């Protein structure tokens, strides 16, 4: 259909001119393309005007008209029907997007209506939308899927003529993106002429990103890079010898960070985790009490209202600095931001670039990113990142391959909506890029799973989520199951969380239930930049007041630790290789030179052609440090693989520590590492088989199962503050319990297989693992027996988060542990074990993990009249 050429129709160029703006060439190109009816992907960094490129063209293409004269208000009922669906990955962005999209509608007095549909949308607004949707709807992948679970809403969605997916680079590589692919497949089926546009920041594989979004249909890629000037530098520690070799916090750099904040108008201080953001905010405030009210903290667990306030103050320019996490990676521009500080590794080249782009938004200004190393080796990383950005080596992001948990959820969603017939839905699902290669067997299994909980042989007769009716349409017969499914739609998995709320006052945000469970009333903890005292826990709410103490616990939020990218790794090895040759280019490398000299003297510096192995015997046991520089995920896979292969000759239990540079295998068994490090040990033959074996000997697959169990509806995720209801609480069982019971009684269940596959693909990145092994085979092995941990080894040595892998028989392993403990208790041998701390239970400084099953079993307050010790 062509755009109506009426005189009152909206004209993007004229609107730009009316504001005194000149469009960039990429904006004009996008306008033409959309008005001509194309689909495509616009590739541009934030703050470059990409929203105008898409939105103004949509208004023109679909005939938004000026209401003349306009004393009458636009009403929902008189406005054009739903035409554009605008998808944003974060709820938090929706309101800002709405404000931006409303601007031309209001200033040009257009006849379109616009509203939001997210998890935050009020029930009255939702009810109004159920009567009639706005002309343009702003929503998230989850809310869109939720709408598909209602038959009435699907009819309205069928009228949509264009879908815009904002920040597509944030979605393409994960299951949320897959969920969106499935929703788009449905919308395309409802309207085959649907136009789809994506907005994406810089990616190494932009053409694939377009193909995934458009499901292979032809479409344009518009390059929107406007070449904004970029300045990247690093804060250097004043004296290297005082600068830590390892550690995650980097507080040693506090004075320089304060100076940097002082220098700029407004600064965003990025941290890689929420806990670190809390700690840094507190440290800044302690050092500069006069900054109270001028600096703020922002992360995803803070309450919406708290974050809104921070964002509004940022925009208004009333804040000096905001300490934040990836929660501020996306979204509208904060014009006052002049400088971005990245504390710790940016982990990827594209991420560093993205964060840099959050500063310098006024025309003619420069984006400025300053990296703040938290330990010495991060100086090398900073040099590497700067070099990689300069040479344009950016990361690629690949879509997940047919995750069955997301498919299972989708089947229930569609059954709840219109219902489905299997052949028709299979054809539709296969149009989604991630499910192109879905086999008939996998499809049958997914149908079997939603119908009877598994394949026919292990049918669970009591269980029936979805069933065909008399007409052969698959539907959800049980209203309670329907409600539960709707409240559980989504692919973001988090631990059960608790609302943190002032006694009789405002909500502050959420923390994981497990963290609160370890606190007693009266204990203090740091949250939202305040020291809070726990008063008591009521249902799923932790009631708090401001604490008088100044010290307290810091909540940790789980969530995958990011691996650094191949691109950054390669750039780093390049820098090291130059250093090994005595060449130290740039301020960072010059600063770190003395430490690299220590590494060289005590051991060696890894290069592209050598694989460095360090062997050390301590009172803890035998250590092997290996440095493939392949990122923490691959290292975990490599370490498990090596541990398992060694265990085939000699049963042993290994403690594994990994970081982005390498890994450590530690065992109390008597292993002779130099003799064991043969080419066969590093061979890529039988790789998959061996890795699968090593998975069963470790705990990785079990942890991955947690996410799969939740997405497929196996484990019910309670909602903070909702109270959950009795039946919801009865369903709270830990996924590890499910994992065990499935492994024992239904080992062929495909969700278990998926857990393994996902561990292989996501956690261990087997393709990268294979590449790494092949590269390692081409490298000369350089084995160094060291007298003490080296600068490269030390960070691994002190890493507290460890995996374990055992090839010993369970009974043998317990017997050995018990014997060691007895010897330690009687003062014999093994001085590494502190008899008092280790004989029983956990030492107080170790993080306690507590598996729960019932949720109703109270922790024992006393055992027969005696208080706990």
């Amino acid at each position, binding site marked *: 259909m062509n755009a109506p050429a009426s005189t009152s129709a909206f004209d993007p160029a004229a609107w730009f001119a009316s504001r005194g703006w000149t469009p960039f060439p990429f904006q004009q190109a996008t306008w033409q393309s959309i008005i001509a009816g194309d689909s495509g992907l616009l590739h541009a960094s934030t703050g470059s005007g990409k929203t105008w490129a898409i939105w103004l063209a949509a208004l023109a293409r679909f005939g938004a008209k000026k209401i003349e004269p306009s004393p009458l208000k636009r009403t929902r009922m008189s406005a054009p029907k739903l035409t554009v669906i605008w998808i944003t990955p974060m709820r938090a962005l929706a309101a800002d997007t709405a404000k931006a999209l409303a601007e031309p509608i209001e200033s040009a007095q257009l006849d379109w209506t616009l509203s939001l549909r997210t998890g935050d949308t009020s029930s009255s607004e939702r009810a109004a939308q159920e009567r009639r949707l706005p002309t343009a709807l702003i929503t998230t992948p989850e809310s869109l899927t939720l709408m598909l679970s209602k038959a009435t809403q699907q009819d309205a969605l069928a009228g949509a003529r264009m879908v815009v997916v904002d920040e597509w680079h944030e979605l393409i590589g994960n299951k949320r993106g897959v969920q969106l692919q499935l929703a788009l497949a449905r919308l395309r089926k409802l309207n085959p002429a649907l136009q789809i546009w994506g907005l994406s920041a810089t990616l190494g594989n932009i053409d694939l990103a377009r193909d995934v979004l458009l499901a292979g249909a032809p479409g344009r890629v518009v390059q929107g890079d406007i070449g904004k000037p970029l300045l990247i530098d690093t804060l250097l520690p004043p004296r290297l010898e005082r600068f830590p070799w390892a550690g995650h916090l980097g507080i040693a750099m506090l004075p320089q960070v304060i100076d940097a904040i002082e220098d700029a108008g407004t600064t965003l201080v990025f941290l890689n985790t929420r806990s670190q953001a809390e700690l840094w905010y507190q440290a800044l405030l302690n050092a500069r009490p006069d900054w109270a009210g001028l600096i703020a903290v922002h992360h995803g667990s803070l309450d919406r209202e708290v974050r809104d306030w921070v964002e509004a103050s940022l925009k208004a320019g009333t804040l000096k600095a905001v300490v934040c996490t990836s929660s501020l990676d996306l979204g509208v521009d904060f014009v006052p931001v002049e400088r971005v500080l990245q504390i710790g590794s940016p982990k990827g080249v594209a991420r560093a670039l993205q964060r840099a782009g959050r500063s310098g938004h006024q025309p003619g200004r420069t984006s400025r990113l300053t990296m703040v190393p938290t330990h010495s080796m991060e100086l090398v990383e900073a040099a590497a990142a700067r070099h990689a950005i300069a040479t344009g080596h950016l990361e690629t992001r690949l879509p997940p391959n047919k995750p069955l948990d997301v498919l299972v959820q989708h089947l229930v969603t569609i059954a709840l909506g219109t219902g489905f017939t299997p052949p028709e839905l299979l054809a539709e699902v296969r149009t989604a890029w991630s499910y192109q290669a879905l086999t008939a067997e996998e499809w049958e299994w997914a149908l079997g*799973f939603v119908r009877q909980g*598994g394949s026919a042989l292990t049918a*669970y007769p*009591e*269980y029936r989520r979805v069933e065909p009716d008399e007409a052969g349409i698959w539907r959800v017969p049980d209203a309670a199951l329907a409600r*539960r499914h709707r409240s559980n739609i989504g692919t973001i998995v988090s631990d059960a969380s608790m609302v943190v709320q002032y006694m009789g006052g405002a909500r502050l945000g959420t923390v994981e239930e497990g963290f609160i469970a370890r606190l007693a009333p009266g204990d203090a903890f740091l949250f939202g930049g305040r020291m809070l005292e726990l008063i008591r826990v009521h249902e799923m709410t932790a009631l708090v007041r401001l604490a008088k103490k100044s010290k307290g616990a810091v909540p940790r939020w789980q969530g995958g630790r990011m691996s650094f990218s191949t691109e950054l790794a390669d750039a780093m090895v390049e820098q090291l290789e130059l250093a090994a040759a005595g060449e130290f280019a740039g301020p960072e490398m010059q600063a770190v030179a003395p430490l690299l000299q220590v590494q060289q003297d005590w051991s060696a510096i890894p290069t592209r052609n050598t694989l460095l192995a360090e062997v050390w015997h301590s009172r*803890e*046991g035998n250590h092997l440090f290996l440095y493939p520089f392949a990122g923490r995920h691959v290292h975990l896979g490599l370490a498990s693989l090596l541990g398992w292969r060694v265990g085939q000759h000699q049963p042993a*239990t*290994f*403690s594994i520590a990994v970081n982005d540079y390498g890994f450590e295998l*530690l065992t*109390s068994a008597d292993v002779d590492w130099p003799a064991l490090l043969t080419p066969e040990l590093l061979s890529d033959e039988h790789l998959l088989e061996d890795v699968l074996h090593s998975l069963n000997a470790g705990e990785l697959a079990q942890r991955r199962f947690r996410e799969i169990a939740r997405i497929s*509806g196996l*484990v*019910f995720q309670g909602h903070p503050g909702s109270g959950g209801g009795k*039946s919801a609480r*009865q*369903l709270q*069982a*830990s996924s590890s*319990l499910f994992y065990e*019971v*499935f492994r*024992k*009684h239904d080992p062929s*269940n495909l969700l278990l297989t998926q857990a393994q596959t996902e561990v292989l693909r996501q956690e261990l990145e087997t393709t990268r693992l294979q590449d790494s092994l092949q590269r390692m085979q081409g490298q000369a092995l350089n084995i160094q027996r060291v007298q003490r941990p080296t600068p490269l080894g030390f960070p691994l040595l002190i890493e507290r988060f*460890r995996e*374990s892998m055992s090839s010993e028989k369970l*009974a*043998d*392993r*317990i*017997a050995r*542990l018990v014997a060691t*403990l007895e010897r330690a208790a009687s003062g014999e041998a*093994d001085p*590494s*074990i502190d008899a008092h701390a280790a*004989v*029983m*239970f*956990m*030492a107080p400084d170790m993080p*306690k*993990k*507590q*598996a729960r*099953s019932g949720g109703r*079993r109270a*922790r*024992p*307050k*006393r*055992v*027969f*009249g*005696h208080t*706990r*010790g």
Partner: protein
Amino acid sequence: MPVTLETRLLNAHAISTHIAGEAVWLLPQKALFWPAQRMLLVADVHFGKAAAYRALGQPVPHGTTQANLARLDEMLAVLAEDVDTLVFLGDFLHAKSSRHPEVLGALETWRARWPALRLVLVRGNHDVRAGDPPQNLRVTVVSEPWIVGPLGLCHEPDVALPGGIYGLCGHVHPAVTLRGGARERMRLACFWMGEHGGILPAFGEFTGSWTMPAHARARVWVVGGGRVFAVGG
């Protein structure tokens, strides 16, 4: 030559100890055998827990009830001549919806195999909601504490007991973490015997566990790999 009870227990990898002056055996099947009273005690079986999940639309594999019963059979095969009473320290059935024909059928069949055995349930928190076991299982139900000799048999650990009585309970599903050299850690279900009372590990297949806080004056035995190991104390 008849094999002595002690030999049979040792062959079954049981460990002997004393609580409240009474000689008892801890079995790797997570049960406690009290020869003087000819009693076998288990806690937190949670029969029909998987069925309760299935009733709420959660697919949990079949086989947990059979596995629980098989473990009871395994012990009774060794101790049939020496046990008159099997005591459940609470949480016999998991929920109302655990009273599923399949679960109850399996329990009846199992009961028929051991017709002479006296079954006693010390009622626990789950039993209050799930209801007492069906009549045909012939289970005597008592409230906590059930005083037998010097022991007070309970479900929950904070029951007030008369002076000089040592409590024995379930409910907690105790576990401990062992730490060794080379940063090794292992979390295992355990028997936990304090000064004034002790806790049995959860017997049920589909049950979780709770890590016990450190307590200097408790004796602990961990269970794993078909063995019981005394730790510390």
